[in-house]
């Protein structure tokens, strides 16, 4: 179900389970003659219990928007509220506090620490939150179990496949129980099978009614897993698709594909 672009730029403030709300976000990058307006007034909201995809061509402003929603970059104009906390006027240290309390990141290249094991990589996310000791170890192990890597606790990233590394990154984002999980091209570096498995994982994580998941992607294979798809072009949200027919599982997806192929 595709709605007009104009309507899609309005935030869904009326929704009670909104965990992130951005309004009229403008971001200018560069200086002087090289200044570029990467975002030209983006408004969106992320709802708990939903996996939202942000799709668009290269240079459309996807990653810039993700950086702002994750409190890594600050907008030139506009407002952002994360987990009920406005970000306006916060300094870099206060933004870091907001990130560690409410935001989890998954990166395209996983960004795991090559010198740490899978378990240690996950524990780092707890360590920056001052959560240490045996409880942190248990939580890290549980998070890895949740992503199906209980058997890889002591493995180093170099000894893991891309899919496994990305699942460690998901566990690292998940372990801090953030209200918002932001994924930057989570399937871009993975083959089809691993990409679908990671998307399946993200859609399961998004079923948690206290958490919203946003994934930036240009991979059309990821669409069946989403509750909502936002399309961005030239720094503006130009469309939103709410997938009312429901989210498919990997098995359903495979079955549907087979059916389409046979037809």
């Amino acid at each position, binding site marked *: 179900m595709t709605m007009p672009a104009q309507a899609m730029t309005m935030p869904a403030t009326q929704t009670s389970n909104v965990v992130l709300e951005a309004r009229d976000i403008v971001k200018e990058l560069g200086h002087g003659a090289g200044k570029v307006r990467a975002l030209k007034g983006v408004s969106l909201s992320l709802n708990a219990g939903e996996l939202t995809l942000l799709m668009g061509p290269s240079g459309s402003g996807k990653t810039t928007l993700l950086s702002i929603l994750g409190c*890594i970059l600050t907008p030139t104009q506009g407002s952002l509220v994360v987990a009920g906390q406005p970000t306006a006027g916060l300094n870099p240290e206060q933004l870091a506090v907001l990130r560690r309390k409410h935001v989890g990141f998954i*990166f395209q*290249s996983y960004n795991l620490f090559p010198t740490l094991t899978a378990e240690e990589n996950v524990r780092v996310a707890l360590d920056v939150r001052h959560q240490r000791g045996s409880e942190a170890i248990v939580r890290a192990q549980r998070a890895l179990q949740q992503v199906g890597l209980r058997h890889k606790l002591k493995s180093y990233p170099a000894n893991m496949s891309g899919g496994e590394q990305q699942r460690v990154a998901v566990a690292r984002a998940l372990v801090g129980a953030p209200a918002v999980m932001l994924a930057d091209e989570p399937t871009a570096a993975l083959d089809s099978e691993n990409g679908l498995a990671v998307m399946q994982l993200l859609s399961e994580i998004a079923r948690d009614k206290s958490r919203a998941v946003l994934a930036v992607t240009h991979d059309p294979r990821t669409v069946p897993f989403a509750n909502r798809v936002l399309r961005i072009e030239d720094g503006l949200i130009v469309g939103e698709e709410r997938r009312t027919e429901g989210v498919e599982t990997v098995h359903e997806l495979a079955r549907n594909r087979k059916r389409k192929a046979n037809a």
Partner: protein
Amino acid sequence: MTFTQAFRNLFYDRIRLVVTLVGILFSIVLVAVQLGLYLGARTMIISMIEQADGDLWVMAYGTKNFEEAQPIPAREKFAALSTPGVAKAIPLITSFTDWRKPTGGSTLVVVIGAEAEDNGLRPWNVIEGDVSGLGARDAVMIDKTYLAELGVNGVGDTAQVGASRVRITGLTEGIRSFTVTPYIFTTLSRARSLLDMPVDKITYVLAKLEPGADIEVVRRQISQKVPDSEVLTRDEFRQRSLDHWLFATGAGVALIGGAILGLVVGTVIVAQTLYSSTKDHLNEFATLRALGSSSGYIHKVILTQAGLAAVLGYMLGMTIALTIVYLSEHTALPIVMTPALAALLLALTVAMCAISALSAIGKVMRIDPAMVFNR
């Protein structure tokens, strides 16, 4: 986890670790040797003043150090002795002269003459013979370090000093001169004879004060009685000797300069390798920042890495430095290592590594956390 991350970062690149440790090690050894030589020099310069049993020293005006003193009238001894508060006034003779080796050739020596029974300045660390043996005919005592230089083998050997014959009756260990000129201990009268010094001349008067006597009052009173001489406390004479040898001659400045150079070179090497290591791990630091770590957390990782390098480098450096200290123990210029110097070296190493870490921290603080999306 900061320790684990720092430890793994440090050991991840073995070649860089070796370069870092070599930098620290080089710095520590250089500083230890330079400061150890400085301490050794200090000990040698003041050893006679420390060992002499005198609270006040009466000497020729402008005397700069123990060895290079001009004669003063022998009557100064009585002037000192007649001053209230002085318990004992001990005459001392010292001067340079030639030692003719039995094997041929000659070398400069410093003859020190004092009566053994006065307990003014007796040889110490005696390893062979006895101080009382100095009363025997032609008797002298020397340090075993200088046996080869003096062309003798040990007790019983004879040599010629000035026009007189001397016989070695005892050996000491560790009494070395900063000028590398051997000390020859003998009696007051024999020293006078060896140095051809008139009977009405001596070099120093050591004044031993009575318990409770005010040293400043006594010094003033003695000074009034010996207007042609100078009266210094032990501390003043010690400081004047140190100032002369270590700073007026530039020897100490050279040693301290060498130590500073070692620190600078070490800091540059460690800073360079730490900066380079941090640069290699920049994306990881950006990831930490994106995960919400505070600046302090990242500083802690870098400083821990620097601290680990410091401790490892210190242990290796000290092992080599202590070996050098051991090997220099019986040479004319021993290198001294004290617990205080070891602690100072540790503090300097940690400080050096902490300063080196600043450049790495500066680099990390300038990173844009958004770079995590650009890989």
